[in-house]
Every structure is written in C-alpha cells, then in structure tokens.
C-alpha cells in the first residue's frame, strides 16, 4: 500500500517537474509581444534554437571549468585555456543574440547566431596562431563548422539575408585559405572544394523550402481571410435576425394594444349594455369585432412562422390529452360557419381514444386550421372526421366534398404566404395556416399530409404519436 502511494507521489512529482520545465521553456522562448504572424513564428524558432545552444554551452562551460577528466591518467590537470576561451566567446555571442531574439529586432539575433561559429573559429585560430600549436591540415574541419552558421542563418533569417550570410562565409573561407596557406589542406583539395559547394546547396534547399512555406502561408492567409469574411457575414446575419425578432416583438405589442380596444369595445356595443342599437349597427359592430379577431390571427400566424424559421417554437407539453375533446372544440368553432350552406359535419371518433402527449393549444390549432379550410372550400356535402389507431399513433382523417386541390396547387399548400388560386378567390387567411400546422404536427413527432381529387374532395391526415418522445418543455407558446 505504502509502496503504491510512493510510486503515486513519484509520478506526481515527475509530472509537476516536467510541467515546470515545460512552463519554463515556454517562458524562455516567448517572442516579443509586438511581433505577430510569420515574424512571431520565426522569432519563436530562433529563441528555441538559442535557448538550446545556451543550455549546451553552459554544460560545456561547466565541463571545461570543473575538468572532470583531470583525474584520468594522461590528461593535464590544468584548465584547457583554449576551450574556455571558445566557450566564453560563444556564450557571450549567444546571450547577445538571445537578447536581440527577445526584442522586436529578432533578425539581428539570427544574424549574430549565424556569425557565432565563424567568430568562434577565428578566436580559436587566433589563439592557435599565437601559441603556435595549431595542428596542420585542420582548416577543412573548421570550414564545416563555419558552414553551420550558414545553415542557422538560412533557416531563421529571410531567404535574401541567408544568401548574404552564405556569401560572407564563403569569402571568409577563401580569405582564410589565402591568409593561412601554411595550415591549408595537405592533400585535402577535394575537401576544400566540397566545403565551398555546401553553403550553396544549403541556401538552395532552404530557398526551396522557404518558397514552399511561403506558398503554404499564403494559402493559410487566404483561408484565414475567407474564414474572417464568413464570420463577419454570420455575425451580420445574426444581427439582422435579432433586429427582426425585436421588430416582431414590438410590432406584436404595438398592434395588440389597440386591438384590445377595437375587439372589446365593439363586442361591448353588441351586447347592448350601454343602450340598444339597431340591427344594422349590431351587424356592423359584429364585423368590427370579427375583423379585429382576424387581424389578431394574422399577427399570431406571422409570429408563429418567424418562431418556426428561428427554430424557437416551443411546445407546452401535457400528458393525457384527449384528442376527441380537442377536435370537439375545433368543431364547435367551425360549425356556425356552415349554417348557411348545405354541408353536414360528422364526427365519427370512438369515445375512448387513447390519450396523447402534446401541447393542447397547438393540437387545437392544427385541427382548427384543417377544419376551417374544409368549411371554407366545401359548398355542399359532408365534412367527416374519422380516426385510425395503429400501434404507436393515432391517425385523424378529415375528409370534405369540396372542389379539391388542383395538382399545380398541391405543392403550394405547405409553402408560406402562398395561397392557391381558389383560396385567394375565397378570400381571407394568411396562407400560413397549413405550413404552420404541418410544422406543429412534426414538432409533436407526427405528420400532416393530404390526398385530393378535383371535383371529389380532399382528405387531410394528421398523425399524433401515442406516447410522444418529446421532452417536456418548460414554457408555453
């Protein structure tokens, strides 16, 4: 048990140490705040390189100063002066380059870093020259070292500057060969030529890489631009949507307040509480009230449609709704409009329809829409309401003996603001009733469709699931 805990503690401390090191590294290689984009990436790359070099150099310095090999036989116990000199020189260069790397002039840091190997070689050579113990034929190896500067410069600096560094380094090599002929190349002519070619190859490959990177970068920038444009467009659309919602809310509010007076004042006059009125006046105030109700329905339909479009139509779901009751309410609403036509309305529903789950008001809205359409378009005959119960849903069919829906109109029945020609002739309605009803049926997990034949009639079908899968919403409407 204890051992397990121990391992756990070790793991945790190892984790926190690695976390600490990661944090430190991130802090150390963080570019100047004023840089951005490609500059920031370049500076970060440079700082990574510099930090790593600094770390290695510090380790090298520690090794040189402590001289752990001194106890070994045959190795001098004194500090190696030349190594110390080279170490200090390179450390100084690296610290200055690092300071530049952290600033916004990070490229100067890169330049210094690319020159550092050259300087180190020169220092080494100078020391060797003065102490006269520089081994012959070693220049070729140093030239490789000089080339390292070209590589660093090419990777971190821009393409053009890396070429300058390469040319500078080549000139330096040639100067060395010319100035120090006694140290050059005993039989290493090939090596020398090879050394001169290498910077060129490096620059060429880095140039190609840079070109490829530039291409990718420009593609990334293009993508970023497109992305930004898309986001701006979306934001604009959202704003427009909000403006629309705000407009609808205030329109609804501003229209409802006067409608309260129009509908109810005229109703009150019709009740003759404030004194008798004649038949014509009674009819007129009745029309005022009905027109007010009609206007209210229009407002509600427009609001419903916008809620559907915005996906914000919420159902106030109750359990145990008796569709028979709901349909009966709809029938009671519609029946008076059939009194002056030879149309009979029959309701043939079993007294014990299974209960459904749904929004009582919205279900009523569906049947009211279908029934008032049937009543409007049926001049004579029968409107019948039947039901069919399957394993998981109730299907209500409302059949009329109206004119039927022409084929060319049938596709418009469920489109917003489109009324069929005959519908327009009949007048009234927003053309929103059926699209809204279908959305409502689908929101309940049901369906709404119709079958129609010209001259014979139309049957609308609504299905409502027996046990709705809908989650109970918190809110009405």
């Amino acid at each position: 048990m204890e051992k397990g805990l121990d391992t756990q503690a070790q793991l945790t401390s190892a984790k926190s140490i690695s976390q600490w090191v990661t944090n430190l590294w991130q802090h150390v290689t963080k570019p100047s705040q004023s840089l951005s984009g490609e500059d920031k990436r370049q500076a970060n790359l440079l700082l990574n390189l510099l930090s790593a070099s600094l770390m290695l150099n510090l380790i090298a310095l520690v090794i040189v100063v402590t001289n752990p090999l001194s106890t070994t036989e045959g190795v001098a116990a004194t500090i190696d002066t030349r190594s110390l000199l080279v170490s200090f020189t390179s450390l100084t260069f690296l610290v200055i380059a690092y300071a530049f790397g952290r600033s916004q002039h990070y490229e100067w840091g890169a330049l210094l870093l690319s020159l550092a190997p050259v300087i180190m070689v020169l220092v080494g050579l100078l020391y060797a020259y003065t102490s006269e113990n520089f081994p012959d034929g070693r220049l070729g190896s140093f030239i490789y070292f000089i080339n390292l500067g070209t590589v660093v410069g090419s990777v971190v600096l821009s393409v053009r500057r890396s070429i300058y560094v390469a040319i500078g380094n080549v000139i330096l090599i040639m100067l060395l060969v010319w100035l120090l002929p006694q140290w050059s190349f005993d039989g290493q002519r090939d090596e020398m030529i090879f050394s001169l070619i290498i910077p060129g190859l490096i620059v060429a490959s880095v140039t190609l890489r840079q070109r490829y990177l530039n291409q990718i970068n420009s593609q990334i920038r293009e993508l970023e631009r497109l992305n930004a444009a898309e986001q701006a467009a979306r934001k604009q659309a959202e704003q427009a949507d909000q403006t629309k919602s705000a407009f609808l809310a205030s329109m609804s509010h501003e229209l409802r307040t006067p409608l309260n007076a129009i509908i109810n004042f005229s109703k009150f006059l019709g009740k003759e509480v404030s004194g008798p009125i004649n038949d014509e006046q009674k009819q007129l105030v009745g029309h005022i009230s009905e027109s007010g109700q009609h206007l209210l329905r229009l407002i509600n339909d427009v609001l419903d449609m916008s809620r559907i479009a915005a996906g914000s139509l919420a159902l106030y779901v109750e359990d145990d709704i008796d569709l028979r009751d709901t349909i009966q309410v709809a029938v009671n609403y519609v029946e008076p409009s059939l009194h002056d036509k030879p149309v009979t309305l029959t309701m043939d529903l079993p007294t014990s329809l299974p209960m459904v789950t749904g929004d009582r008001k919205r279900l009523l809205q569906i049947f009211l829409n279908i029934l008032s359409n049937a009543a409007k378009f049926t001049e004579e005959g029968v409107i019948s309401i039947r039901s069919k119960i399957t394993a998981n849903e109730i299907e209500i069919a409302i059949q009329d003996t109206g004119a039927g829906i022409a084929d060319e109109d049938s596709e418009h029945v469920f489109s917003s603001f489109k009324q069929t020609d005959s519908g327009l002739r009949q007048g009234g309605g927003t053309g929103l009733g059926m699209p809204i009803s279908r959305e409502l049926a689908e929101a309940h997990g049901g369906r709404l469709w119709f079958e129609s034949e010209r001259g014979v009639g139309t049957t609308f079908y609504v299905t409502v699931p027996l046990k709705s899968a809908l989650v109970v919403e918190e809110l009405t409407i």
Partner: protein
Amino acid sequence: MMRVLYVEDDARSRDVLRMVARLHPNELDVTIFDNSTDFEARLLALPSVPDLILLDIHMKPHTGFEMLEMIKQHDDYKTIPVVALTASVMSKEVQILRRVGFHSMLSKPIDMDQFLSQLQRILKGDAIWYIA
C-alpha cells in the same frame, strides 16, 4: 364579489376592464390605478386587501416587475395572485414573467367573454398563461 386591483397606464385598456366590470356588476369590483407612482403607498392605503392584482408591465415610473416585488414584500399581500396583463407575448418575455414570480398571465387583447371565468379559475389556484 371579487375585488380586483388593476394598474394600467393605457386609457383604452382601462376602459376595456371597466366594461368587463359592467358586464358583471355583482361579481367584479375593480379598482384602477392609472399610473404606478407611489404604487406601494397607494396599495397599502386601499380600504381592503384585493383578492387579485392585474399589472400592466411596461409602465413608468415603476414597471410591472418592480410593482410585483413591492407586493411580495408585505405579508398581507404576498399571497395575492399577481397576474400580468400585457401585450408582450413573445416566448422570452413570457419566460421572464414566469421566472420573476407572476402567478398567471393574460394577454391583450383580452377575451371579454372569458375574462371573469379566467379570473375565477386563477383565484381557485389554477395558473393560467393565456395568449389570445
């Protein structure tokens, strides 16, 4: 006799409620404040505690929400059902009414024929959120 307090700044809406009261002279006794100035003091100064309070929402200086809060601060009044009578019927607005503690909501335009029975149902304890 049901004693109803109605706070409403729109003159026509007040007229509508007076008409409802005239339709039911023996069942409905409506007191009307035509603004919300000093609402709290005027509420406490009423000769009797109302059975039900109807509040318009968009009012000055106190909104329906503020008046609801004032009502709820008095032990004698906080059990009275407070009903929002408003023309703002968008889901968000209704949601806020429910959240802040309105007992029920009746939308404008009101249904003159159903209005008394709706109030009676509210008094019996039914929460009604009716949008015409």
